[in-house]
């Protein structure tokens, strides 16, 4: 098969799940007639009709509330945030209602909330957010943030089939920039399994989404300096694959976390705590964080470049860590 974009992988996952299972419906702003702001749902309306591809008013709380109500009757709604930044508008509906239902009153909400996230495309402070950690702190969500077309398709399918509310972040920088050949037919990628993208014995680099590619780029440069980095793609932040992380760190004894989310309260801090609790004696150096700045995402290309991690920053941090 011809290689497909990340965007096409998302579209295929939704298309195939909807074709196979009438419980799956799509609800969001401009998902029907227009096919989604990024065309991730192009053609779905024509194929599946108005009852299954639902254009809504600009009402994020109502989208989430309605999707949750639909899930209580046994449907598996996919709710799209036009940009993931707007998920803040339905924070209450998600964190207080959707996330707590199974724990409190035994009410699973098999729904997916998905949308374009991340920066690097000069979207400015309200179209570039990486909001995953707002939700990681709320028990009840699964959180997925893929880095490749293969994973995007397989993880989205697994998310739709999961009985829990899944927040599925799609890095918009990757939408059209990477292509991958993926197998024909149905496959899923399980939630909670990280993958080793590059093997190495000197330092572990943990990352996900667009930063996984940045980390791989840095790893190639490090290799030329004789430092073999092991690059791990977390794929999902909840569940977090502690086993794969710990196995790698026990081998390399050094750990670097790269994420596009801002530094304070990012997943790197959580991973630092896990390593401190479970691999303290395996570490030869401090856990190092390469992250975005603790600021809103700025608009000007020069500012955004300064804000985001890049391969040079990862290279420098890994090189200095490797000296321990």
């Amino acid at each position, binding site marked *: 098969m011809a290689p497909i974009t990340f965007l096409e992988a998302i579209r295929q996952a939704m298309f195939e799940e909807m074709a196979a299972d009438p419980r799956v419906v799509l609800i969001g702003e401009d998902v029907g007639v227009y096919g989604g702001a990024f065309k991730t749902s192009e053609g779905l309306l024509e194929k599946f009709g108005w009852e299954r591809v639902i254009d809504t008013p600009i009402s994020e709380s109502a989208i989430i509330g309605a999707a949750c109500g639909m899930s209580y009757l046994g449907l598996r709604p996919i709710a799209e945030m036009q940009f993931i930044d707007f998920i803040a508008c339905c924070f209450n509906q998600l964190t207080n209602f959707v996330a*707590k239902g199974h724990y409190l009153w035994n009410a699973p909400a098999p729904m997916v909330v998905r949308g374009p996230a991340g920066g690097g495309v000069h979207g400015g402070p309200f179209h570039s957010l990486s909001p995953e950690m707002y939700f990681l702190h709320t028990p009840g969500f699964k959180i997925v943030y893929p880095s490749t077309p293969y994973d995007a398709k397989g993880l989205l399918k697994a998310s739709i089939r999961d009985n*829990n509310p899944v927040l599925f972040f799609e890095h918009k920088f990757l939408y059209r920039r990477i292509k991958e050949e993926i197998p024909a037919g149905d496959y899923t990628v399980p939630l909670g399994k990280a993958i080793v993208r590059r093997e190495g014995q000197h330092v572990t680099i943990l990352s996900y989404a667009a930063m996984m590619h940045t980390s791989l780029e840095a790893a190639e440069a490090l290799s030329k300096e004789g430092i073999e980095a092991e690059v791990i793609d977390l794929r999902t932040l909840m569940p977090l694959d502690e086993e794969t992380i710990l196995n790698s760190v026990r081998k390399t004894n050094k750990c670097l976390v790269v994420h596009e989310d801002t530094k304070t309260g990012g997943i790197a801090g959580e991973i630092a705590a896990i390593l401190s609790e479970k691999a303290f004696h395996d570490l030869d150096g401090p856990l190092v964080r390469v992250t975005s700045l603790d600021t809103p995402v700025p608009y000007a290309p020069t500012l955004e470049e300064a804000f985001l991690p890049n391969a040079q920053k990862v290279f420098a941090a890994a090189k200095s860590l490797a000296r321990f």
Partner: protein
Amino acid sequence: MPASDSRVNSPKLSRQQYLDLYYYMRLNREVEETMTRLFRQNKIVGGLYSSLGQEAISVGTAYALEKRDWLAPMIRNIGALLVKGVPPRDIFTQHMAKYTSPTKGKDGTSHFGDLENLHIISPISMLGDLIPVLTGVAMAGRYLGQKIVAMTWIGDGGSSTGVFHEGLNLAASQRAALVLILENNLWAYSTPVRRQVPLENLADRAKAYGITSYIVDGNDVVAVYTTAKEAVERARSGDGPILIEAKTFRRRGHAQHDPAEYVPPAQREYWEKRDPIALYERFLSAEKLLDAKGKKEIDEKLAALLEKEREFAENSPMPPPELASEGVYCSGPECHELQPKWERPIDELLPPKSCVEPVWTVAGFGHGKGSSGGGAPIHFGDTQVAPNGPAEAAKPSVTALANPAKKSLNKKPPAAKSVRRGKARR
């Protein structure tokens, strides 16, 4: 008198229906009185909220639903839960945080649900959130071919939330079978409705969504029931969401801790004289539907039931501490087998039958209520009595109901039962 108005407004109730409404209102009140005693004995773990004086709304509206229909209560709708089939022990154990409660002690008050059998969705404390959720329930019900109606409640206070607007607007744009009961009890905690909303009638909020609304005397259970029944059937038949404003008064404070000293005594006195159960007893007695012997039988039945249910709750254990860490996630099919109840052929929903022509219009949309379209034009500002409404002599005006707070200073209670706003059905 309101009681005689009820008779005029409700020609179709059977004797059993009249008595059911009475039984559930009494049950609602006795359950809450039992909990007040438990609260004073320090046996209620958290807060206790009272619906004293509002029982006619919870009972009358929920009684209009069928078994297949869905509801989500608010904090003062224990009566609705009882009507839907929740046993009193569930209410007691919830408040007492017992392991035997529907949430096993993980949440209290009316915060519990039952997706499988009773079709109840648990409320949360953030007001308005249930409106889009119940809209989704109605949308899914229609999709599955179930012909269900979804009902939830909101207060005068909660009607100012953003999600009230989002939810009702989505419901209207989807023509979802949602019936929203707006209980205007005149107070949002300590803030009177006049300082929250610059509207005479909160039912006017419906205008913004082009949907039908009703105003009803919330202390007249028969009026509430007949209005809700009509609304439920209209929603079921595809008329879209309906808003019912029920005018009433919160007789106790926001919760047990609140003596509500901010309420003017004259207002309180007025509404205490309009106790929905006392009014209804007079009506039942005048209609010879209930005599002293019948009332005594109900008294005894309730006392025996609640004694048994309270004992069950009191004798139940607290949840074991290890439960605290369990149940955040559904572990899969062994935890929940999630299958919808299809009541239409599935192949209608799969290609090729589900395909649409790429013509960007939705059938019926833009021709709904409140629009200038041809489907169901409504002339807002027209106010007419429901066809089965009070006889000519008792015909109310909207202004008669417009300002219960003001009315409270008068001695004469409003005569109106139910005022439909908007035009008659298509």
